[in-house]
């Protein structure tokens, strides 16, 4: 049965590929979108780095390579996935070789205009001071969490898994952040002002207890200078839990 199912699936895959080759651009977009996780994985494995959300040149190269793979693929060449992986890998490797950071110094005069811009962009993102500031800020957050006897590892295990619960936690954290009295009490007592929150926000004590660490961590993030993380909180709290794919589209 499973084999039959597989067979049908494969059939649909080849069918779709043929359709795309026939000139169906909408189908192509959809198809690429579906395979984004695969592209990310392949690129990431090839470079042995995580793709950075900003300046993800490798990622766009991967996308291009995947697109190329669709055009060049023939059923006689075996599995499409294997073929696409091969194409992406070779393209990314080519790119890495070309722009290797460890390449011996080249006089800027040798670059043409386009390349010059690229180098500039690279230098810009690799701003040491910025990276250092971020690091220091993150360290400060960790220290403050420590005061509450919370570590990041605790958060991995104890932060609520369910999106709704997390949303609720964020709501509570924001509420506390916006009420100076509550916030002071929290810092002073190193504990959530449980009774007040329950009264004012209509949440159960059980929920409060369970996501205590998450709420405190969120509060501390809101109270810090970590714009990116604050942005995350806003995104989630705004009620729009962005689909990653949509974000990828933005890229």
């Amino acid at each position, binding site marked *: 049965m499973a084999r039959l199912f597989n067979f049908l699936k494969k059939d649909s895959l080849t069918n779709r590929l043929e359709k795309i080759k026939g000139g169906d651009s909408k189908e192509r977009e959809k198809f690429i979108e579906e395979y*984004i*996780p695969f592209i*990310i*994985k392949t690129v*990431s494995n090839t*470079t*042995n*780095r*995580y*793709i*950075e*959300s*900003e300046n*993800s040149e490798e*990622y766009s190269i991967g996308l291009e390579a995947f697109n190329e793979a669709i055009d060049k693929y023939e059923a006689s060449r075996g599995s499409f996935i294997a073929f696409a992986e091969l194409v992406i890998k070779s393209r990314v490797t080519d790119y890495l070789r070309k722009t290797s950071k460890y390449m011996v110094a080249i006089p800027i005069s040798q670059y043409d205009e386009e390349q010059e811009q690229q180098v500039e962009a690279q230098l810009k993102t690799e701003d040491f001071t910025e*990276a250092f500031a*971020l*690091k220091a*800020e*993150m*360290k400060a*957050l*960790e220290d403050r969490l420590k005061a509450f006897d919370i570590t*990041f*590892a605790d*958060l*991995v295990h104890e*932060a609520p*898994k369910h*999106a709704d619960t*997390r949303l609720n*936690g*964020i709501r509570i954290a924001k509420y506390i952040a916006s009420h100076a009295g509550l916030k002071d009490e929290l810092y002073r007592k190193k504990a959530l002002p449980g009774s007040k929150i329950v009264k004012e926000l209509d949440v159960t004590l059980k929920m409060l207890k369970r996501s205590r660490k*998450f709420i405190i961590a*969120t509060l501390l993030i809101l109270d810090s200078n*970590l714009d*990116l*993380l604050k*942005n*995350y*909180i806003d*995104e*989630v709290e705004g009620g729009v*839990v*962005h689909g*990653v*794919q949509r*974000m*990828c589209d933005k890229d």
Partner: protein
Amino acid sequence: MVYRGCVIKIENDFALVLTNTMEYLKIVKKDGLVVGKEIIFVTGDLYKENKISVRRMGLAAAVVFFMVFSMTWMHPWIFSRIFASTAVIVSIDINPSVELEINRDEKVLKAIPVNVDGQKVISKELVGMAVDDAVLRIVNNAKEQHYLTEERNAVLISTTVMKEKERLDEKGIVAKIERKLAQQMELGQLHIVYVAGKKEDVQEARKRHLSLGKYEVYKKAEANGEKITIEQMKAMKVQQMMEKRMGPWEVKAIKAREDKPAAGEDREHSQKVKDPKKESEKVEMQKTEKQKKSQPGNLGGENKDEGKEQSKNNKALVEKQQNPVKKGEGDEKEKQEKKERQQEKFEKKSEMEKNIKEKTPQGELKRGEADRGKHPEKEERGRGDEKDEEKDPMGERPQREKENGRGEKSKGN
């Protein structure tokens, strides 16, 4: 699934990320990870903590399995059930009495001395030996310690099958033992008496500290109405038993390969004759045998055993003539032993030579062969006899032996 998140901390084995959905996750480390950087990763990059624990669990399971497995195999009970279960008990009485427990591969598992003397003839080396080798070793030990001599050379062997399932061939084991003894024993000759033991008797025999072979003889003697106690039985040497012709001796004796008839003849002249009928029968039998042998046509059909038997008969006859009082009186016999031995040598030789013309010389041949190892003097004599015998086609012998073995049994019965 694709995640987007900010690296918040880098540990030894993994990195911690806070995703844009406010999830805290662990991811595997890759090159160029920097705290505070936003990255995109997929489900495959998530750090699996249970990856290690699964491995550990597998290891633990393997260890546990191995331990259970090895314990099962090492467990003495199971071990004994599989490899070391006693299939047959072979008892050997001379009068050191020894019992050998052997497994289905006819290897000795345990050598149990039944009496004090028995302790002297066994050693640890016996364990693991093939049963025939072990018996040979015991017989040789007994010979070295003078339990067995040329004259007192009766051995009682019994076999008891403990496991009917194994379908062991008792007779085969005995035959094997006899063959081995005939080949390699250090004695000139042995009187082997074979008794089949019964599984049910094992407990009883053990309780009475009697060897199985002796117990069987005792039981049969009792059945025949002979008055004998266990204590007497214990003290008695097999030689004496043979001379006293206890219990069903005669019947069994024929199965044994060697000269029971000699004992029978001894009996004839002793005053304690218990079974005149049987005796007379035997004499008759012997006569007929002699007649047969004297017929030239029969010569080819005769075997070593028969020849041997006859030679011994002759010897016995001579002994009778010279020492009529001797037989049946153990003490006297023992005193006279030395003299007799010397006499016998001459007697034997002269008798044999006389008999050569009349009878098959094979008996002498066998004797000669058996003696060769131990007694150089005899050997020479034996060889002298052999010369005559060698006229016989050698190739026929093994076959003849078999035939005769059978023939003799039937005659005896």
